């Protein structure tokens, strides 16, 4: 889960995506790569249960089993928090590779790597071992530009790229506001696709439910009544190979009088 730019919804998306995979019966681990600025634990609502972290495991100070936090709401879901005290150099290629390999041997179906913002070590390590990359983008110039930069790194600085293979790229647009797109104030989904030329896997509408979910430490995908929760669920299904039409792309049509008098 990557983006380059911060604040676009990587952690929100990682939490929702990992929960969605686990809900479908896949044994899933979600790892916070943002060493020094850990936040996945808060979004997942397990911040008070953190004992050991990712760096402890890499340094051999704790076993993977000790550090993985089993999610209380969703079966098959495990969280590996980032260290809050170390610096980002604590993430070594060998260490990260070993943790991911150990998870594979422990029969995990999916390992979701929540990348930090930027293009430094943490971001590099989060993408290095990836088979698939979800590039999270807001309809906003700086986010689109940074996403393109990240796509360049995915195509050159990953293990797959080094082996002459390629990481599968998927574009997820978040904080989308159809009414602003219609008014010509916001980049539309087609514009972003034309610029980045990456297959679209989902569009998450701007929604109050995302803040509500983070406030309460419950991944937004569990809010099944919300538009964002449903859009995340569609995205997970598409990732797993289902054909699901995109929703929430058009403005809800109001009648003439409602538009006049709001």
């Amino acid at each position: 889960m990557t983006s380059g730019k911060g604040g676009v919804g990587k952690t929100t998306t990682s939490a929702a995506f990992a929960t969605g995979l686990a809900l479908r019966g896949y044994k899933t681990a979600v790892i916070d790569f943002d060493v020094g600025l850990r936040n996945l634990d808060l979004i997942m609502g397990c911040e008070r249960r953190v004992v050991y972290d990712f760096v402890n495991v890499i340094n051999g100070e704790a076993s993977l089993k000790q550090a993985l936090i089993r999610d209380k709401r969703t079966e098959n879901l495990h969280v590996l928090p980032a260290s809050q005290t170390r610096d980002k150099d604590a993430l070594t290629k060998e260490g990260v590779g070993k943790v991911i390999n150990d998870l594979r041997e422990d029969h995990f179906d999916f390992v979701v790597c929540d990348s930090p913002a930027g293009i430094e070590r943490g971001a590099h390590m989060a993408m290095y071992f990836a088979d698939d990359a979800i590039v999270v983008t807001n309809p906003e110039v700086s986010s689109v530009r940074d996403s393109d930069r990240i796509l360049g790194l995915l195509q050159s600085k990953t293990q797959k790229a080094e082996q002459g293979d390629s990481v599968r790229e998927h574009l997820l647009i978040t904080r989308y506001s159809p009414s602003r797109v219609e008014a010509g104030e916001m980049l539309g989904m087609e514009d972003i696709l034309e610029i980045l030329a990456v297959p679209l896997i989902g569009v998450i509408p701007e929604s109050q439910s995302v803040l509500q979910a983070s406030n309460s430490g419950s991944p937004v995908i569990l809010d099944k009544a919300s538009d964002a929760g449903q859009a995340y669920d569609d995205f997970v299904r598409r990732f797993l190979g289902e054909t699901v039409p995109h929703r929430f792309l058009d403005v809800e049509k109001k009648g003439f009088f409602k538009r006049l008098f709001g």
Partner: protein
Amino acid sequence: MAWFDYFRQGKQGSAKLAKERLQIVIAHERIDRNGPEYLPQLRRDIMSVIRKYVPITEEQVNVQFEKGTDYDVLELNIALPEREH
């Protein structure tokens, strides 16, 4: 004022401008990263040489790098400022 917004809807938004600016800047950045590593430095060096003779800005120097099957092409396009009469 919902009635006011209703009549404003025809107004041209800024999204079009955002798209145009992005297309230009991303095209430049893609050339830099697909070309050899020395390309950004080469561009700067060329700029400083030309600036000894004529004042130019970064936008006036266009460096294109194309990978061919047998050979790569480095294309320089420098737009000189209009001559003073």
